[in-house]
């Protein structure tokens, strides 16, 4: 494996870990609140260890005591103990440094007072003269750190937020008042804590960010939205200047994220745990991780799993589920129906031309009625179609057909009225939610070995060239490109590692000119941060301000050419035999 590959891989793993953490946290946050104390008391009867107090914010000040240690520096005495006991085989200890120097989440609050934030505030004031971004809970819900889990029905005020440092550790990992002590102070039992089952940690509100579905749901709370938590970018906010929320592919985000975590394969503790026949089950049960190399148990060879393939498939489903849950929440906020932000942005936001490619292509449902975002279900269908093609196909072959029927039903619910038919939308979303649960169970049972990952890669390539796929907008194309790049990168680094043929590298380079492939890295801004990435990651440049990133990205986005995109995937398809 080349250094480059290692770096990318490690980035990927890190992203997964972060996302996982985030999701878990969210899930936890969501779980604890409304039924609140009563439910917690009931739980406590079953689990005597379960804390009886609601989780609250410890604050980043507590985390930096350990997680702000530069590698090779002199460790403070407390930390030295951990290091001596092999902690760095599992974590990095410089997490806070990376986050504060390189991670965009640490800039999220500053964005509210930057040039774009100010311009947006000016516009919002037209409708709401008293609007102040730094004090408005609709902004703070995602741009600051909440003092406790955000729950449905809560009347949020500025007092529920700590705005000093943006989105800090506990927004993703879970508010720490209950788990802080067990995870750090039980030094003698620290391995015990580490290997506690995820459900038990969840009771303490530590979010299981290593579980891809938990992680994707956590990220989706802000990056898609969650009205129960007061997180929703309305169309008014977009009109005032909020940047568009790109479609969420957690794994692609991770690829470009400066990692404050290690991919499992970079962490010796996890590699050993998964490799050993005795502990492989623990690695799976606790860390949702299977060895990437073949393991022989009782004379039987279990093929290594391609890590990102599983992460991609499960995250896609979980993201779809979060999006559908949000759509189901929106009409509940008003009888008037959906806010425009719940619709496909590009159904309306395109330049009109004659002859019109949209009219030539045709519409799903009635013309002139904007619908839900087409990217939502496209990748989901692909992942499930791939999934039921495996040996777990047996009883579940109706899944894809049912999804298509539910989609049509949702399209009708969107179509009936200008803002959709609220009751019908709520009903269909509830049905799709049930479908998601079933589909997730199927995908979770699949062993994504190299053959499956290759099949998935080829399915993704086929989707990119398929004339029948409604790649109506660059968002769907982006998701296809991102999924392809994830799998391509992963297949290069997972065993058996191999060098990539130049023709593939060339075609991937062409993709960079057609869609936004790098979410984070700006080739023009290679300002290296003070913190070198000990795991070899390359995306550790200082964050480029949103104002500088957005313009170029949207230019590329707006000049999307579906014909060239399809041609590229056509050529990739011709060369797909090179992926082995």
């Amino acid at each position, binding site marked *: 494996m080349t250094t480059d590959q290692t770096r990318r891989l490690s980035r990927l793993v890190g992203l997964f870990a972060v996302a996982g953490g985030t999701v878990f946290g969210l899930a936890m946050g969501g779980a604890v609140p409304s039924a609140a104390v009563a439910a917690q008391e009931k739980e406590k009867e079953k689990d005597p260890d379960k804390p009886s107090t609601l989780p609250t914010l410890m604050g980043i000040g507590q985390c930096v005591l350990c997680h702000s240690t530069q590698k090779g520096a002199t460790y403070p005495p407390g930390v030295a103990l951990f290091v001596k006991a092999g902690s760095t085989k599992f974590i990095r200890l410089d997490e806070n440094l990376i986050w504060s120097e390189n991670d965009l989440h640490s800039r999220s609050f500053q964005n509210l007072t930057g040039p774009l934030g100010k311009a947006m505030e000016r516009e919002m004031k037209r409708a709401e003269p008293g609007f102040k971004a730094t004090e408005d809970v609709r902004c703070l819900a995602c741009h600051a750190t909440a003092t406790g889990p955000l729950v449905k029905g809560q009347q949020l005020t500025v007092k529920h937020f700590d705005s000093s440092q943006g989105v800090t550790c506990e927004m993703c990992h879970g508010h720490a008042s209950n788990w802080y002590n067990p995870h750090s102070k039980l030094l003698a039992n620290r391995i015990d804590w580490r290997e506690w089952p995820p459900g038990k940690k969840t009771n303490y509100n530590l979010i299981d960010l290593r579980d891809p579905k938990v992680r994707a749901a956590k990220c989706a709370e802000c990056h898609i939205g969650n009205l129960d938590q007061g997180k929703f970018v309305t169309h008014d906010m977009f009109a005032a200047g909020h940047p568009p929320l790109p479609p969420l592919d957690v794994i692609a985000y991770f690829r470009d994220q400066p990692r404050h975590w290690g991919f499992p394969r970079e962490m010796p503790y996890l590699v050993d745990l998964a490799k050993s026949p005795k502990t492989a089950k623990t690695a799976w049960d606790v860390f949702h991780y299977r060895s990437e190399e073949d393991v022989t148990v009782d004379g039987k060879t279990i093929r290594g799993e391609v890590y990102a393939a599983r992460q991609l498939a499960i995250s896609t489903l979980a993201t779809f589920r979060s999006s559908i849950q949000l759509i189901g929440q929106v009409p509940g906020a008003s009888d008037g129906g959906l806010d425009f932000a719940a619709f496909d942005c590009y159904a309306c936001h395109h330049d009109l031309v*004659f002859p019109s490619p949209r009219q030539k292509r045709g519409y799903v449902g009635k013309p002139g009625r904007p619908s839900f975002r087409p990217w939502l279900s496209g990748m989901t269908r692909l992942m499930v179609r791939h999934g039921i093609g495996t040996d777990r196909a047996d009883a579940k072959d109706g899944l894809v057909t049912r999804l298509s029927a539910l989609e049509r039903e949702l399209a009708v619910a969107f179509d009936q009225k200008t803002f959709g038919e609220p009751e019908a939308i709520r009903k269909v979303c509830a049905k799709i939610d049930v479908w998601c649960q079933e589909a997730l169970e199927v995908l979770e049972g699949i062993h994504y070995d190299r053959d499956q990952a290759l099949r998935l890669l080829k399915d993704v390539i086929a989707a990119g060239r398929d004339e029948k796929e409604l790649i109506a907008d660059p968002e769907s194309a982006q998701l296809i490109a991102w999924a392809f790049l994830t799998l391509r990168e992963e297949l290069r680094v997972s065993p058996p590692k191999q060098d990539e043929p130049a023709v593939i590298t060339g075609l991937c380079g062409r993709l960079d000119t057609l869609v936004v492939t790098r979410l984070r890295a700006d080739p023009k801004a290679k300002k290296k941060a003070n913190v070198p990435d000990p795991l070899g990651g390359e995306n550790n440049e200082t964050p480029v301000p949103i104002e500088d990133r957005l313009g170029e990205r949207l230019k590329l986005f707006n000049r999307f050419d579906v014909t060239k995109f399809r041609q590229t995937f056509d050529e990739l398809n011709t060369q797909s035999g090179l992926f082995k």
Partner: protein
Amino acid sequence: MRTAVCLMLGIVVAGWAVGSPDLPPATLPALQPNKLYGVGLPHGDVTPATSCAAASCHGGGQTGRPGSELTTWAPDLSVGPNDPHDPHSRAYRVLFNQVSVRMARLLEPDKEKPCPPHLNQLCLKCHSVDGANPQVAAEGVGCAACHGTSEEWLTIHYQPSWKSKSNPEKAKSKFIPTKNLVARVSNCATCHVGGKDRDVNHDLIAAGHPRLAFEYTRFHYQPTYQKHWKDPDDTATYESRAWVIGQVASLRAAVEVLQARAKNSNAPWPEFAGYSCYACHQTVGNGEPRGSGTDTSKPLGWPGWEVWYTATAVPAALVAQKIFRDVPPPQLDHLKDLRYLMERRTEPGQAVPKAPSQTDVLNVTEHVLSDLDRWLLDVQQAEDKRSTSPVSSELLGQLGRDLAGSALHDGKLRNHDWDFLAAHYLGTVAMYHAGGGTAKYPGWQDPLQKLGCDLHFPRSCEGEPRFNSPGAFGTTKLNKIQYNFGRLKSGFDTSGGSQ
């Protein structure tokens, strides 16, 4: 198609102009109009256009000459499709072209055999004479569409007594006196804007129908439009009257369409076709807020209602007051209420906005229609009496400056909406031409040309689809537009400018 209706109207006017001197009848009848001549006519017996085509009547065979109105209207197919003609004559044929056929398919995707446009009554209302039998419908927007069905006046309209009849008398026989600008333009608007049973909604537009954006003087003065009539030569009075009547009559039709939509509980509400197209149909910007401007009454994230027809309502009322001095100007208070209802969707702090109430909208549209009808009827009567006073070139210059100025507020663009800016531009152009054009106002030519240029949709390279929307309508263009409206407003800059 839009031009078609105007052309037909023109035919009528021309036919009439041929035989009648431009003098008022010796005695005005007591009969006063109590309805608009050109709106809400009952179906009648649609005579084919060919029955008007006798060589001694309107088929003289000499394109452009009096007595050859039908010849001028119809293309000479022996010459070829490019022979100059009135586009109204093509209105039926376009129902067979690729776009129309595809529209039918897109609009009824579930049907194996969707209703073809040439048999679809909704299409035929405006692409032929409403109510015509299939044979006559095939003539397109023929004579009767603009001049009225002729069963009651066909045999008398060439008799000497016809000329002595007043317009109200003629109108009683379902003849539309198109020389009366109110009659003419309000009839144009029934198709070019719509009416209670004529709605080019967003489904139709998304399926391929062009958007409707009617502005009478723009249609009237299209250089390629072959008129089959001649209008009075008094440019100043004529064009300024035509513009202001066009504004009010078109707005009236837009409100009538809205009223029909508000009554319909089965159609999408609010209907997208009633909102500013390019407020939504623009690519997502890079954080620079667009579609705003200094008009703080416009809500965020929501397109303006019928901006094309409402943008210049206030300045048009002022122009109306100056030009029709004996007629009280149109009242716009209810219109203001209506705009508020249609546009103000989000209450402060409300997470998700609400749609406007159909009942409230219905109530207000009745008031607005009554306000606009009152003015139109007064002016229709003034037009009949030809009692409009002459308008001086200086006054028209001032009105043009006021119109340009009303695009601005505190020196900045009041609204960034393309429709808003284009409507102001066209109004200013109408006053400029009416006031004597470059001969009288040499300094206006440059800023007007630059405004026209900046408002023009982007030009595509050969082989590329052509733009049907303003494209990159961002800060650079808006700043130039602001500058040039500013120059026109000041009225003193004759230097030609540099932007």
